[in-house]
């Protein structure tokens, strides 16, 4: 029924030519048609067996295309990693907010802008690349985003340019965005041998209910290095479905980290295609959830070219009646000989009612490859708890420390120190005091 709500949004939206360059309209139309035909996924659909989109499909969301919001700089402090010299674009309820944003010193030729501005200006790279990676076959949510996006981030790093400081794209929701749906679209382009670190955060001030449906496309040309840190700290009443699609050229290196701890229901898709030989990808992540939160990660690494390496470590900590889903796909095409792939997913359940569905999936069509995968699900180690308590640490402190230690190992792999430290603190504090006595 709200499929129609979104179709209505689109009719109004399509009429507003100011936001729609000529070339984009047919793409949007094709997307909304596809969405209209297929509707939202159901648990019968592949990759949606363990996550029901019904709560999103059945809700009525208002369009947030017009923007608005009442976020002050001080509200953002908990989300800015203590950084004062980063380029930071802030989007409130989906719309770029220049008053809260700051473009720091950037090397010549680097462009960081809101996508709406870049579209208005007719930046050629946008026309060339936008919607080229996340396409119709990505399913309902990407189709919806493609049809309805208004704004988002645009980052373009020209060839051989190294951007030292991270670029932060900070998406904030507040009470003015309550009951709204936003579809931010971000395009990141790293030309040949360019290097950059992008931090993409989704956060809330207060605890409004809303639907955040971002899509990010990352283009890595030959030899480009992109570190992409994604931080999902939405309101605990929010719904978040996010898709990242990267495309990697020869000898490029994409390092992704996904931290997911907010939202009533979140689904994070991280996909990459290793299209040129010698490419490397690291997909790491940590999800921490409690209460009745549902947190789903889907990753897909497509080895198209030979001699590429993929490493993946996802960890999850689930308390109370939280439900986690991890589905890691590694797809090795017949030409992708000498692929080196390694994937692990480790989960820690702090409560008997917490639940995880984990499914590593290797599909290998080349014969000369080295691929491993493994998943574990466990509780806190009784003997480790006792060891800590026998040295004087209280039961709760011992649990907190062991939980943190479990999570810290993957967080410590983040190269960017400010983000690493911030996430370490978040991981340490996530369950403090929330863990019931007698668990494990």
């Amino acid at each position, binding site marked *: 029924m709200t499929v129609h709500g979104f179709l209505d949004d689109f009719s109004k939206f399509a009429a507003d030519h100011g936001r729609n360059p000529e070339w984009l309209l047919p793409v949007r139309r094709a997307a909304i048609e596809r969405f209209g035909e297929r509707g939202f996924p159901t648990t019968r659909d592949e990759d949606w067996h363990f996550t029901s989109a019904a709560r999103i499909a059945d809700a009525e969301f208002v369009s947030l295309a017009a923007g608005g919001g009442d976020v002050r700089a001080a509200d953002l402090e908990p989300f800015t990693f203590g950084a004062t010299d980063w380029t930071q674009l802030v989007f409130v309820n989906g719309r770029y907010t220049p008053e809260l944003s700051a473009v720091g010193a950037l090397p010549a030729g680097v462009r960081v802008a809101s996508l709406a501005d870049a579209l208005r200006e007719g930046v050629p790279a946008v026309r060339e690349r936008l919607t080229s990676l996340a396409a119709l076959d990505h399913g309902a949510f990407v189709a919806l985003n493609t049809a309805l996006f208004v704004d988002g981030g645009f980052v373009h790093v020209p060839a051989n340019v190294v951007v030292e400081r991270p670029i932060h794209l900070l998406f904030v929701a507040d009470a003015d965005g309550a009951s709204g749906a936003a579809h931010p679209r971000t395009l990141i382009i790293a030309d040949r041998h360019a290097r950059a670190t992008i931090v993409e955060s989704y956060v809330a001030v207060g605890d409004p209910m809303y639907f955040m449906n971002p899509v990010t496309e990352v283009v890595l040309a030959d030899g480009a290095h992109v570190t992409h840190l994604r931080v999902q700290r939405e309101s605990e009443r929010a719904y978040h479905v996010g898709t990242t699609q990267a495309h990697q050229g020869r000898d490029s290196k994409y390092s992704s980290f996904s931290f997911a701890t907010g939202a009533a229901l979140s689904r994070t898709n991280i996909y990459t295609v290793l299209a040129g030989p010698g490419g490397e990808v690291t997909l790491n992540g940590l999800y921490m959830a409690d209460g009745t939160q549902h947190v789903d990660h889907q990753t897909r690494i497509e080895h198209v070219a030979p001699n590429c390496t993929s490493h993946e470590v996802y960890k999850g900590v689930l308390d109370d009646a939280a439900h986690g889903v991890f589905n890691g796909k590694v797809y090795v095409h017949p030409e992708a000989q000498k692929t080196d792939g390694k994937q692990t997913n480790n989960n820690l359940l702090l409560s008997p009612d917490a639940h995880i569905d984990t499914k590593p999936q290797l599909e290998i069509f080349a014969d000369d490859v080295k691929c491993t995968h493994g998943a574990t699900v466990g509780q806190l180690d009784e003997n480790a708890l*006792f060891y*800590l308590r026998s*040295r004087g*640490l209280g*039961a709760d402190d011992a649990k907190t420390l062991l939980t943190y230690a479990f999570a*810290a190992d993957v967080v410590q792999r983040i190269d960017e120190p400010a983000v690493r430290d911030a996430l370490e603190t978040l991981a340490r504090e996530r369950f403090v005091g929330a863990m019931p006595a007698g668990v494990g």
Partner: protein
Amino acid sequence: MLEIIDLHAGIADREILKGISLTVRAGEVHAIMGPNGSGKSTLAQVLAGHPAYEVTGGSATYDGEDLLALPPEERAQKGIFLAFQYPVEIPGVTNAYFLRAAYNEIRKSKGLDEIDPMDFADLVEERLRLVDMDREMLQRAVNAGFSGGEKKRNEILQMAVLGPRLAILDETDSGLDIDALRVVAHGVNSLRRPDNATIVVTHYQRLLNYIVPDRVHVLAGGRIVKSGGKDLALELEARGYDWLVEAAPAGVAGAAV
């Protein structure tokens, strides 16, 4: 300081300790010896409060207080320290953090403020020398990837830093070469004071050449079947345990003090 009377304990319906009585006074060193599987570690773990073991009878009093009613952390805060036979690996937590957290918890329980980090660094530095360990180990995760000998030394380091009143060393000597054994024994001996006590659990007499006990007890089949002075250890070395184990009639609790 510690008085154990007719202690029965086990795990999952299986009785392992079948009536242990033992009195340890301040200033004393007691050795508990006995064959594998006789219940030595179980006794040590029960005294430290491992929740997996159920006490089914008897009592243990520590400084006049019911020890068995206390959670493990309170026992530690009151000065009981168990050097584990199998120290646990804790990846992701550094020794430095762990030592300081434990030290401060014990201070907090006494109503004291946390120690100044610089003062603590000095204390640890000095204790590291005592057990002949490199300070570089402080930045390593607790016991993770440590060799057997490193783990045992790390237990003694923790003991040296925390300064317990009653230390229970569970086979701290097993798997140590003679040099490491000397280091461990030196650590234990230099921490001895008239107001603290040590229980040394060991399978071999060897360690007792370095840590000289006041009393030696033989544990077999969950009971203390014989107690004596330090010469008993030499006798056990010469004759083995069989003569004692066979002599202990089933169903009769061995008395020992």
